[in-house]
Protein backbone atom coordinates (compact mmCIF):
# COMPACT_ATOMS: atom_id res chain seq x y z
CA UNK A 1 0.00 0.00 0.00
CA UNK A 2 0.97 3.62 -0.41
CA UNK A 3 2.77 5.12 2.58
CA UNK A 4 0.85 7.39 4.94
CA UNK A 5 1.15 9.22 8.22
CA UNK A 6 -0.62 7.93 11.29
CA UNK A 7 -2.44 9.77 14.04
CA UNK A 8 -3.54 7.98 17.17
CA UNK A 9 -6.53 10.03 18.33
CA UNK A 10 -7.37 9.85 22.01
CA UNK A 11 -11.01 10.78 21.53
CA UNK A 12 -13.56 12.20 19.13
CA UNK A 13 -12.31 15.82 19.29
CA UNK A 14 -8.74 14.86 18.44
CA UNK A 15 -9.95 12.51 15.74
CA UNK A 16 -12.06 15.14 14.02
CA UNK A 17 -9.21 17.68 14.26
CA UNK A 18 -6.94 15.25 12.44
CA UNK A 19 -9.40 14.68 9.59
CA UNK A 20 -9.83 17.08 6.69
CA UNK A 21 -12.52 18.23 4.27
CA UNK A 22 -11.00 16.61 1.18
CA UNK A 23 -12.59 13.25 0.38
CA UNK A 24 -10.26 10.27 0.69
CA UNK A 25 -7.17 12.20 1.79
CA UNK A 26 -7.40 11.67 5.56
CA UNK A 27 -9.35 8.57 6.59
CA UNK A 28 -10.49 7.23 9.95
CA UNK A 29 -9.13 3.80 10.86
CA UNK A 30 -11.31 1.68 13.12
CA UNK A 31 -10.97 -2.13 12.95
CA UNK A 32 -9.25 -1.74 9.59
CA UNK A 33 -10.74 -4.89 8.09
CA UNK A 34 -12.24 -3.02 5.17
CA UNK A 35 -9.93 -0.03 4.92
CA UNK A 36 -6.58 -1.84 4.90
CA UNK A 37 -7.80 -4.18 2.16
CA UNK A 38 -8.89 -1.17 0.09
CA UNK A 39 -5.48 0.39 0.63
CA UNK A 40 -3.62 -2.77 -0.34
CA UNK A 41 -5.55 -2.73 -3.60
CA UNK A 42 -4.90 1.02 -4.09
CA UNK A 43 -8.64 1.77 -4.11
CA UNK A 44 -8.06 4.00 -1.09
CA UNK A 45 -4.79 5.95 -1.02
CA UNK A 46 -4.96 8.24 1.99
CA UNK A 47 -2.12 10.50 3.06
CA UNK A 48 -3.07 10.03 6.67
CA UNK A 49 -4.92 7.49 8.79
CA UNK A 50 -6.54 8.60 12.00
CA UNK A 51 -6.95 5.77 14.47
CA UNK A 52 -10.43 6.18 15.96
CA UNK A 53 -10.39 3.19 18.26
CA UNK A 54 -10.29 5.82 21.02
CA UNK A 55 -13.95 6.67 20.33
CA UNK A 56 -16.54 5.50 22.85
CA UNK A 57 -16.48 1.72 23.22
CA UNK A 58 -19.33 1.33 25.70
CA UNK A 59 -22.83 -0.07 25.40
CA UNK A 60 -24.91 1.99 27.83
CA UNK A 61 -28.56 2.37 28.79
CA UNK A 62 -30.02 5.79 28.04
CA UNK A 63 -32.31 7.61 30.52
CA UNK A 64 -35.33 6.95 28.25
CA UNK A 65 -34.75 3.19 28.37
CA UNK A 66 -32.97 2.80 25.05
CA UNK A 67 -29.39 1.80 24.32
CA UNK A 68 -26.43 3.90 23.23
CA UNK A 69 -23.74 1.97 21.40
CA UNK A 70 -20.32 3.59 20.95
CA UNK A 71 -18.87 3.49 17.45
CA UNK A 72 -15.72 1.73 18.70
CA UNK A 73 -17.69 -1.15 20.25
CA UNK A 74 -16.55 -4.31 18.49
CA UNK A 75 -18.99 -6.61 16.74
CA UNK A 76 -18.02 -9.38 19.17
CA UNK A 77 -18.78 -7.10 22.10
CA UNK A 78 -22.18 -6.21 20.64
CA UNK A 79 -23.03 -9.81 19.76
CA UNK A 80 -22.07 -10.95 23.27
CA UNK A 81 -23.94 -8.19 25.11
CA UNK A 82 -26.77 -9.92 26.99
CA UNK A 83 -28.59 -6.62 27.39
CA UNK A 84 -28.42 -5.76 23.69
CA UNK A 85 -29.54 -9.28 22.81
CA UNK A 86 -32.53 -9.10 25.12
CA UNK A 87 -33.57 -5.65 23.89
CA UNK A 88 -32.73 -5.79 20.16
CA UNK A 89 -32.18 -9.30 18.82
CA UNK A 90 -32.38 -7.88 15.28
CA UNK A 91 -29.16 -6.00 15.98
CA UNK A 92 -27.21 -8.71 17.82
CA UNK A 93 -28.21 -11.43 15.34
CA UNK A 94 -26.81 -9.28 12.55
CA UNK A 95 -23.60 -8.55 14.47
CA UNK A 96 -23.06 -12.23 15.29
CA UNK A 97 -23.09 -13.23 11.63
CA UNK A 98 -20.66 -10.67 10.24
CA UNK A 99 -17.60 -12.21 8.55
CA UNK A 100 -15.61 -14.42 10.88
CA UNK A 101 -14.65 -14.42 14.59
CA UNK A 102 -11.38 -12.66 13.75
CA UNK A 103 -13.24 -9.94 11.85
CA UNK A 104 -15.83 -9.48 14.61
CA UNK A 105 -13.05 -9.26 17.24
CA UNK A 106 -11.61 -6.11 15.65
CA UNK A 107 -14.43 -4.85 13.44
CA UNK A 108 -16.40 -2.04 15.05
CA UNK A 109 -19.99 -0.84 14.93
CA UNK A 110 -18.91 2.43 13.31
CA UNK A 111 -16.66 0.66 10.84
CA UNK A 112 -19.32 -1.84 9.86
CA UNK A 113 -21.86 0.89 9.15
CA UNK A 114 -19.37 2.99 7.17
CA UNK A 115 -17.57 0.24 5.24
CA UNK A 116 -17.28 0.64 1.48
CA UNK A 117 -19.20 -1.46 -1.05
CA UNK A 118 -18.12 -4.98 -1.98
CA UNK A 119 -18.85 -4.57 -5.69
CA UNK A 120 -16.00 -6.35 -7.46
CA UNK A 121 -15.71 -3.63 -10.10
CA UNK A 122 -15.35 -1.01 -7.38
CA UNK A 123 -12.78 -3.18 -5.59
CA UNK A 124 -10.72 -3.88 -8.69
CA UNK A 125 -8.07 -1.33 -9.55
CA UNK A 126 -8.47 -2.17 -13.26
CA UNK A 127 -12.05 -0.90 -13.49
CA UNK A 128 -12.48 2.89 -13.44
CA UNK A 129 -16.12 2.62 -12.44
CA UNK A 130 -18.58 5.41 -11.69
CA UNK A 131 -17.84 5.33 -8.00
CA UNK A 132 -14.16 5.93 -8.69
CA UNK A 133 -14.86 8.86 -11.00
CA UNK A 134 -15.16 6.88 -14.23
CA UNK A 135 -18.01 6.96 -16.71
CA UNK A 136 -19.34 3.38 -16.62
CA UNK A 137 -21.03 1.07 -14.17
CA UNK A 138 -19.49 -2.20 -15.32
CA UNK A 139 -22.12 -4.21 -13.46
CA UNK A 140 -24.85 -3.23 -15.92
CA UNK A 141 -23.46 -5.39 -18.75
CA UNK A 142 -21.19 -7.46 -16.57
CA UNK A 143 -21.18 -9.91 -13.69
CA UNK A 144 -24.03 -8.56 -11.63
CA UNK A 145 -25.18 -11.66 -9.76
CA UNK A 146 -24.64 -10.01 -6.36
CA UNK A 147 -25.73 -6.51 -7.31
CA UNK A 148 -28.85 -4.48 -6.59
CA UNK A 149 -32.42 -5.48 -7.43
CA UNK A 150 -33.83 -2.13 -6.32
CA UNK A 151 -32.92 1.41 -7.30
CA UNK A 152 -32.33 3.15 -10.60
CA UNK A 153 -28.57 3.35 -10.52
CA UNK A 154 -26.50 4.84 -12.00
CA UNK A 155 -24.33 2.70 -9.68
CA UNK A 156 -25.76 -0.68 -8.72
CA UNK A 157 -23.92 -1.62 -5.53
CA UNK A 158 -25.65 -3.22 -2.60
CA UNK A 159 -24.97 -1.63 0.74
CA UNK A 160 -22.43 -3.87 2.51
CA UNK A 161 -23.30 -3.25 6.15
CA UNK A 162 -25.12 -5.85 8.23
CA UNK A 163 -25.80 -3.38 11.05
CA UNK A 164 -27.18 -0.65 8.79
CA UNK A 165 -30.31 -2.69 8.06
CA UNK A 166 -31.44 -3.41 11.64
CA UNK A 167 -30.44 0.18 12.53
CA UNK A 168 -33.03 1.44 10.05
CA UNK A 169 -35.60 -1.16 11.15
CA UNK A 170 -35.12 -0.18 14.80
CA UNK A 171 -35.38 3.53 13.96
CA UNK A 172 -31.93 4.20 15.38
CA UNK A 173 -30.39 7.65 15.51
CA UNK A 174 -26.76 8.19 14.63
CA UNK A 175 -24.71 10.79 16.50
CA UNK A 176 -22.21 12.46 14.20
CA UNK A 177 -19.43 14.86 15.22
CA UNK A 178 -17.63 17.25 12.92
CA UNK A 179 -15.45 20.35 13.12
CA UNK A 180 -18.40 22.59 14.01
CA UNK A 181 -20.04 20.36 16.57
CA UNK A 182 -22.40 17.43 16.63
CA UNK A 183 -25.61 16.46 14.89
CA UNK A 184 -28.05 13.59 15.10
CA UNK A 185 -29.19 11.83 11.95
CA UNK A 186 -31.97 9.25 11.64
CA UNK A 187 -30.55 5.94 10.43
CA UNK A 188 -33.15 6.10 7.66
CA UNK A 189 -31.68 9.40 6.45
CA UNK A 190 -28.03 8.48 6.93
CA UNK A 191 -27.55 6.32 3.84
CA UNK A 192 -27.68 7.93 0.40
CA UNK A 193 -28.53 6.58 -3.02
CA UNK A 194 -25.90 6.91 -5.77
CA UNK A 195 -27.87 9.56 -7.67
CA UNK A 196 -27.42 11.82 -4.64
CA UNK A 197 -23.96 10.77 -3.56
CA UNK A 198 -21.88 8.73 -5.96
CA UNK A 199 -18.53 8.84 -4.19
CA UNK A 200 -19.77 7.93 -0.75
CA UNK A 201 -22.68 5.98 0.66
CA UNK A 202 -23.71 8.19 3.57
CA UNK A 203 -24.32 11.80 4.60
CA UNK A 204 -21.04 11.77 6.53
CA UNK A 205 -18.66 14.52 5.40
CA UNK A 206 -14.97 13.56 5.08
CA UNK A 207 -14.20 15.37 8.34
CA UNK A 208 -17.13 13.96 10.28
CA UNK A 209 -17.30 10.80 12.40
CA UNK A 210 -20.14 8.55 13.43
CA UNK A 211 -19.69 8.26 17.21
CA UNK A 212 -22.82 6.54 18.53
CA UNK A 213 -25.77 4.46 17.44
CA UNK A 214 -28.72 5.30 19.67
CA UNK A 215 -31.55 2.80 19.78
CA UNK A 216 -34.96 3.91 21.07
CA UNK A 217 -36.62 2.02 23.94
CA UNK A 218 -37.79 -1.31 22.53
CA UNK A 219 -41.17 -1.19 24.26
CA UNK A 220 -43.22 -4.21 23.24
CA UNK A 221 -41.55 -4.45 19.84
CA UNK A 222 -40.43 -7.79 18.53
CA UNK A 223 -37.42 -7.60 16.28
CA UNK A 224 -35.45 -10.06 14.18
CA UNK A 225 -32.91 -10.28 11.39
CA UNK A 226 -32.87 -13.20 8.96
CA UNK A 227 -30.00 -13.66 6.51
CA UNK A 228 -29.77 -15.94 3.49
CA UNK A 229 -26.19 -16.84 2.73
CA UNK A 230 -24.24 -18.75 0.17
CA UNK A 231 -21.56 -19.60 2.74
CA UNK A 232 -22.07 -19.70 6.50
CA UNK A 233 -18.96 -17.67 7.24
CA UNK A 234 -16.39 -15.51 5.44
CA UNK A 235 -19.19 -13.97 3.39
CA UNK A 236 -21.85 -11.34 3.03
CA UNK A 237 -25.50 -12.38 2.83
CA UNK A 238 -27.12 -12.74 -0.60
CA UNK A 239 -30.11 -10.94 0.84
CA UNK A 240 -31.43 -10.38 4.32
CA UNK A 241 -34.15 -8.59 6.21
CA UNK A 242 -34.62 -6.91 9.57
CA UNK A 243 -38.04 -6.29 11.01
CA UNK A 244 -39.38 -4.48 14.05
CA UNK A 245 -42.99 -5.16 14.93
CA UNK A 246 -44.82 -3.24 17.62
CA UNK A 247 -47.52 -5.48 18.93
CA UNK A 248 -50.70 -5.27 20.91
CA UNK A 249 -51.41 -8.83 21.88
CA UNK A 250 -50.73 -10.80 18.75
CA UNK A 251 -51.87 -8.03 16.42
CA UNK A 252 -49.32 -5.85 14.66
CA UNK A 253 -49.83 -2.17 15.49
CA UNK A 254 -46.88 -0.92 13.49
CA UNK A 255 -44.10 -2.50 11.47
CA UNK A 256 -40.78 -1.56 9.99
CA UNK A 257 -39.51 -3.93 7.31
CA UNK A 258 -36.06 -3.32 5.84
CA UNK A 259 -34.15 -5.45 3.34
CA UNK A 260 -30.37 -5.68 3.04
CA UNK A 261 -28.00 -6.56 0.19
CA UNK A 262 -30.70 -5.68 -2.35
CA UNK A 263 -30.06 -1.96 -2.97
CA UNK A 264 -27.40 0.73 -2.55
CA UNK A 265 -28.95 1.58 0.83
CA UNK A 266 -30.94 -0.40 3.41
CA UNK A 267 -34.20 -0.82 1.51
CA UNK A 268 -37.30 -0.10 3.54
CA UNK A 269 -40.59 -1.47 2.27
CA UNK A 270 -43.62 0.67 3.16
CA UNK A 271 -45.80 -1.80 1.21
CA UNK A 272 -44.74 -4.72 3.41
CA UNK A 273 -45.24 -2.59 6.51
CA UNK A 274 -48.76 -1.66 5.41
CA UNK A 275 -49.54 -5.29 4.62
CA UNK A 276 -48.65 -6.29 8.20
CA UNK A 277 -50.30 -3.48 10.09
CA UNK A 278 -53.53 -4.49 11.81
CA UNK A 279 -52.98 -8.18 11.03
CA UNK A 280 -52.46 -11.11 13.35
CA UNK A 281 -49.00 -12.57 13.06
CA UNK A 282 -49.34 -15.75 11.05
CA UNK A 283 -47.33 -17.43 8.34
CA UNK A 284 -49.88 -16.18 5.83
CA UNK A 285 -49.54 -12.57 6.95
CA UNK A 286 -45.75 -12.90 6.72
CA UNK A 287 -46.07 -14.31 3.21
CA UNK A 288 -48.33 -11.49 2.07
CA UNK A 289 -45.92 -8.91 3.48
CA UNK A 290 -42.97 -10.65 1.80
CA UNK A 291 -44.77 -10.59 -1.56
CA UNK A 292 -45.39 -6.87 -1.10
CA UNK A 293 -41.74 -6.27 -0.16
CA UNK A 294 -40.38 -7.44 -3.50
CA UNK A 295 -43.05 -5.81 -5.65
CA UNK A 296 -41.32 -3.38 -7.96
CA UNK A 297 -37.96 -5.16 -7.83
CA UNK A 298 -35.90 -4.54 -10.97
CA UNK A 299 -33.34 -7.31 -11.20
CA UNK A 300 -30.35 -7.00 -13.50
CA UNK A 301 -29.28 -9.59 -16.08
CA UNK A 302 -27.93 -12.20 -13.64
CA UNK A 303 -29.61 -11.57 -10.31
CA UNK A 304 -33.32 -12.21 -10.65
CA UNK A 305 -32.79 -15.14 -8.27
CA UNK A 306 -32.26 -12.55 -5.54
CA UNK A 307 -35.91 -11.48 -5.71
CA UNK A 308 -37.02 -14.84 -4.33
CA UNK A 309 -34.23 -14.82 -1.75
CA UNK A 310 -35.20 -11.36 -0.52
CA UNK A 311 -38.83 -12.47 -0.35
CA UNK A 312 -37.89 -15.50 1.73
CA UNK A 313 -35.69 -13.37 4.00
CA UNK A 314 -38.56 -10.98 4.71
CA UNK A 315 -41.02 -13.78 5.38
CA UNK A 316 -38.64 -15.59 7.71
CA UNK A 317 -37.56 -12.42 9.53
CA UNK A 318 -41.22 -11.71 10.31
CA UNK A 319 -41.80 -15.27 11.46
CA UNK A 320 -38.64 -15.22 13.54
CA UNK A 321 -39.75 -12.00 15.23
CA UNK A 322 -43.15 -13.59 15.86
CA UNK A 323 -41.55 -16.64 17.41
CA UNK A 324 -42.87 -18.88 14.64
CA UNK A 325 -40.78 -21.61 13.04
CA UNK A 326 -38.89 -20.21 10.04
CA UNK A 327 -38.38 -23.43 8.08
Amino acid at each position, binding site marked *: *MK*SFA*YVNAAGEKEAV*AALGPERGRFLPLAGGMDLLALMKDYIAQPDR*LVNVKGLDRAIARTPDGGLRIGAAVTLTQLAESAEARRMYPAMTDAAAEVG*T*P*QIRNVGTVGGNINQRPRCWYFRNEEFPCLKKGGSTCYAVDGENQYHAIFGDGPCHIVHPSSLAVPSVALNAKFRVVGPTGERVVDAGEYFQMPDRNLFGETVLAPNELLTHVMLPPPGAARTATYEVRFKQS*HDWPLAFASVALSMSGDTVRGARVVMGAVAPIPWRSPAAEAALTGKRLTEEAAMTAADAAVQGAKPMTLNSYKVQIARTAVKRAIMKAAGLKTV
Partner: protein
Amino acid sequence: MAPKKKDEPGFSRRSFLKTVGAGGVAAGVLGPASTAEGQNVKAIGPAASPIQLNVNGKFHRLEVEPRVTLLDALRTRLNITGPKRVCDRGSCGACTVILDGRTVYSCSMLAIEAQGKVIRTAEGLTEGTVLHSVQRAFCDHDGLMCGFCTPGFVTAAVALLEKNPKPTRQEARKALDGNICRCGTYPRVLEAALNPKSAAGVKRG
Protein backbone atom coordinates in the same frame (compact mmCIF):
# COMPACT_ATOMS: atom_id res chain seq x y z
CA MET B 1 15.27 -3.00 16.36
CA ALA B 2 14.81 -6.74 16.55
CA PRO B 3 16.80 -8.39 19.33
CA LYS B 4 19.98 -10.14 18.25
CA LYS B 5 19.45 -13.80 17.55
CA LYS B 6 22.00 -16.05 19.20
CA ASP B 7 23.48 -18.91 17.22
CA GLU B 8 22.29 -18.07 13.74
CA PRO B 9 25.39 -18.85 11.73
CA GLY B 10 23.86 -20.19 8.55
CA PHE B 11 22.73 -18.25 5.54
CA SER B 12 19.15 -18.86 4.54
CA ARG B 13 16.73 -17.39 2.03
CA ARG B 14 14.92 -15.81 4.95
CA SER B 15 18.00 -14.13 6.44
CA PHE B 16 18.96 -12.89 2.97
CA LEU B 17 15.52 -11.33 2.50
CA LYS B 18 15.72 -9.83 5.97
CA THR B 19 19.07 -8.18 5.20
CA VAL B 20 17.75 -6.69 1.99
CA GLY B 21 14.63 -5.49 3.80
CA ALA B 22 16.59 -3.89 6.63
CA GLY B 23 18.62 -1.78 4.20
CA GLY B 24 15.45 -0.43 2.67
CA VAL B 25 14.02 0.42 6.04
CA ALA B 26 17.16 2.15 7.29
CA ALA B 27 17.12 4.40 4.25
CA GLY B 28 13.52 5.28 5.06
CA VAL B 29 14.22 6.61 8.56
CA LEU B 30 13.92 10.35 8.25
CA GLY B 31 12.57 11.37 11.62
CA PRO B 32 9.77 10.03 13.74
CA ALA B 33 7.08 12.68 13.95
CA SER B 34 5.86 15.56 11.87
CA THR B 35 3.15 18.06 12.60
CA ALA B 36 0.52 18.53 9.92
CA GLU B 37 0.13 21.85 8.20
CA GLY B 38 -2.08 24.28 10.07
CA GLN B 39 -3.23 21.76 12.64
CA ASN B 40 -2.04 20.85 16.06
CA VAL B 41 -2.03 17.16 15.35
CA LYS B 42 0.73 14.74 16.21
CA ALA B 43 1.25 12.60 13.14
CA ILE B 44 3.69 9.70 12.99
CA GLY B 45 5.44 8.80 9.74
CA PRO B 46 5.15 8.13 6.85
CA ALA B 47 8.83 7.38 7.63
CA ALA B 48 9.72 4.54 9.98
CA SER B 49 9.21 5.22 13.67
CA PRO B 50 10.13 3.23 16.75
CA ILE B 51 7.48 0.94 18.17
CA GLN B 52 7.45 -1.75 20.80
CA LEU B 53 5.61 -5.05 20.50
CA ASN B 54 4.94 -7.59 23.22
CA VAL B 55 5.06 -10.95 21.47
CA ASN B 56 4.96 -14.25 23.32
CA GLY B 57 5.92 -12.55 26.58
CA LYS B 58 8.94 -10.75 25.16
CA PHE B 59 9.24 -7.05 24.34
CA HIS B 60 10.67 -6.22 20.93
CA ARG B 61 11.73 -2.75 19.83
CA LEU B 62 11.71 -2.09 16.11
CA GLU B 63 11.26 0.74 13.64
CA VAL B 64 8.47 0.44 11.11
CA GLU B 65 6.57 2.68 8.76
CA PRO B 66 2.92 3.08 9.75
CA ARG B 67 1.91 1.02 6.70
CA VAL B 68 3.65 -2.14 7.92
CA THR B 69 1.12 -4.74 9.03
CA LEU B 70 1.51 -6.66 12.25
CA LEU B 71 1.95 -9.82 10.15
CA ASP B 72 4.83 -8.38 8.14
CA ALA B 73 6.46 -6.97 11.27
CA LEU B 74 6.28 -10.37 12.96
CA ARG B 75 7.52 -12.34 9.97
CA THR B 76 10.09 -10.14 8.29
CA ARG B 77 11.37 -8.10 11.22
CA LEU B 78 11.07 -10.35 14.25
CA ASN B 79 11.48 -13.69 12.45
CA ILE B 80 8.30 -14.98 14.07
CA THR B 81 6.99 -16.97 11.14
CA GLY B 82 4.20 -19.03 12.68
CA PRO B 83 1.60 -16.60 11.33
CA LYS B 84 1.52 -17.19 7.58
CA ARG B 85 0.99 -14.68 4.79
CA VAL B 86 -1.51 -16.20 2.36
CA CYS B 87 -4.37 -13.97 1.21
CA ASP B 88 -3.18 -10.80 3.02
CA ARG B 89 -6.82 -9.62 3.00
CA GLY B 90 -8.36 -11.13 6.12
CA SER B 91 -10.00 -13.93 4.18
CA CYS B 92 -8.08 -17.08 5.07
CA GLY B 93 -7.00 -17.11 8.72
CA ALA B 94 -3.42 -18.32 8.16
CA CYS B 95 -2.09 -15.16 9.85
CA THR B 96 -4.24 -15.57 12.98
CA VAL B 97 -2.63 -14.45 16.23
CA ILE B 98 -4.10 -14.00 19.70
CA LEU B 99 -4.22 -10.35 20.71
CA ASP B 100 -5.36 -9.58 24.26
CA GLY B 101 -7.06 -12.97 24.38
CA ARG B 102 -8.97 -12.65 21.09
CA THR B 103 -8.07 -13.98 17.67
CA VAL B 104 -7.25 -11.38 15.02
CA TYR B 105 -5.95 -11.43 11.46
CA SER B 106 -2.46 -9.98 11.83
CA CYS B 107 -2.44 -9.13 8.09
CA SER B 108 -5.28 -6.69 8.64
CA MET B 109 -3.87 -4.74 11.55
CA LEU B 110 -1.05 -2.25 11.47
CA ALA B 111 1.97 -3.09 13.62
CA ILE B 112 1.81 0.41 15.08
CA GLU B 113 -1.72 -0.31 16.32
CA ALA B 114 -0.64 -3.47 18.12
CA GLN B 115 1.54 -1.58 20.60
CA GLY B 116 0.52 -2.15 24.20
CA LYS B 117 -1.29 -5.37 23.30
CA VAL B 118 -0.37 -8.87 24.42
CA ILE B 119 0.35 -10.76 21.20
CA ARG B 120 0.66 -14.55 21.08
CA THR B 121 1.56 -16.75 18.14
CA ALA B 122 1.96 -20.50 17.70
CA GLU B 123 5.63 -20.13 18.73
CA GLY B 124 4.55 -18.95 22.17
CA LEU B 125 2.48 -22.07 22.82
CA THR B 126 5.38 -24.49 22.85
CA GLU B 127 7.50 -24.70 25.99
CA GLY B 128 10.93 -25.76 24.86
CA THR B 129 10.23 -29.01 23.04
CA VAL B 130 6.95 -29.66 24.84
CA LEU B 131 3.98 -29.06 22.64
CA HIS B 132 0.85 -27.29 23.87
CA SER B 133 -2.03 -29.70 24.44
CA VAL B 134 -3.77 -28.32 21.35
CA GLN B 135 -0.67 -28.77 19.19
CA ARG B 136 -0.39 -32.29 20.56
CA ALA B 137 -4.04 -32.93 19.70
CA PHE B 138 -3.44 -31.79 16.11
CA CYS B 139 -0.72 -34.46 15.85
CA ASP B 140 -2.81 -37.16 17.52
CA HIS B 141 -5.90 -36.46 15.41
CA ASP B 142 -4.05 -35.88 12.14
CA GLY B 143 -5.35 -32.32 12.09
CA LEU B 144 -3.13 -31.24 9.24
CA MET B 145 -2.14 -32.20 5.72
CA CYS B 146 0.15 -29.64 4.09
CA GLY B 147 0.29 -27.75 7.40
CA PHE B 148 0.25 -24.22 6.08
CA CYS B 149 -3.03 -23.29 7.81
CA THR B 150 -2.09 -25.14 11.00
CA PRO B 151 -0.55 -22.35 13.11
CA GLY B 152 -3.65 -20.25 12.43
CA PHE B 153 -6.02 -23.07 13.34
CA VAL B 154 -4.01 -23.93 16.45
CA THR B 155 -4.06 -20.35 17.73
CA ALA B 156 -7.78 -20.07 16.97
CA ALA B 157 -8.42 -23.33 18.85
CA VAL B 158 -6.30 -22.20 21.80
CA ALA B 159 -8.15 -18.88 22.01
CA LEU B 160 -11.46 -20.76 21.95
CA LEU B 161 -10.47 -23.24 24.67
CA GLU B 162 -9.06 -20.57 26.95
CA LYS B 163 -12.46 -18.85 26.91
CA ASN B 164 -14.60 -21.95 26.74
CA PRO B 165 -12.77 -25.10 27.90
CA LYS B 166 -15.62 -27.44 26.93
CA PRO B 167 -17.10 -26.13 23.70
CA THR B 168 -19.88 -27.98 21.94
CA ARG B 169 -19.19 -29.17 18.40
CA GLN B 170 -21.30 -26.28 17.12
CA GLU B 171 -19.42 -23.70 19.23
CA ALA B 172 -16.09 -25.05 18.03
CA ARG B 173 -17.21 -24.92 14.41
CA LYS B 174 -18.31 -21.32 14.83
CA ALA B 175 -15.10 -20.33 16.63
CA LEU B 176 -12.92 -21.89 13.95
CA ASP B 177 -14.85 -20.70 10.93
CA GLY B 178 -12.51 -17.77 10.35
CA ASN B 179 -9.80 -20.16 9.13
CA ILE B 180 -9.60 -21.96 5.82
CA CYS B 181 -7.83 -25.23 5.01
CA ARG B 182 -7.31 -25.77 1.29
CA CYS B 183 -6.52 -29.45 1.89
CA GLY B 184 -9.93 -29.78 3.51
CA THR B 185 -8.98 -31.50 6.72
CA TYR B 186 -11.73 -29.76 8.69
CA PRO B 187 -13.23 -32.85 10.42
CA ARG B 188 -9.87 -33.65 11.99
CA VAL B 189 -9.14 -30.06 12.91
CA LEU B 190 -12.47 -30.11 14.72
CA GLU B 191 -11.63 -33.39 16.47
CA ALA B 192 -8.30 -31.91 17.59
CA ALA B 193 -9.95 -28.76 18.91
CA LEU B 194 -12.51 -30.81 20.82
CA ASN B 195 -9.94 -33.18 22.36
CA PRO B 196 -7.04 -31.03 23.53
CA LYS B 197 -6.19 -33.04 26.62
CA SER B 198 -5.58 -36.32 24.89
CA ALA B 199 -1.82 -36.34 25.37
CA ALA B 200 -0.87 -33.08 27.02
CA GLY B 201 2.70 -32.64 28.08
CA VAL B 202 4.19 -35.49 26.10
CA LYS B 203 7.74 -34.67 25.09
CA ARG B 204 8.59 -34.54 21.43
CA GLY B 205 12.24 -34.83 20.49
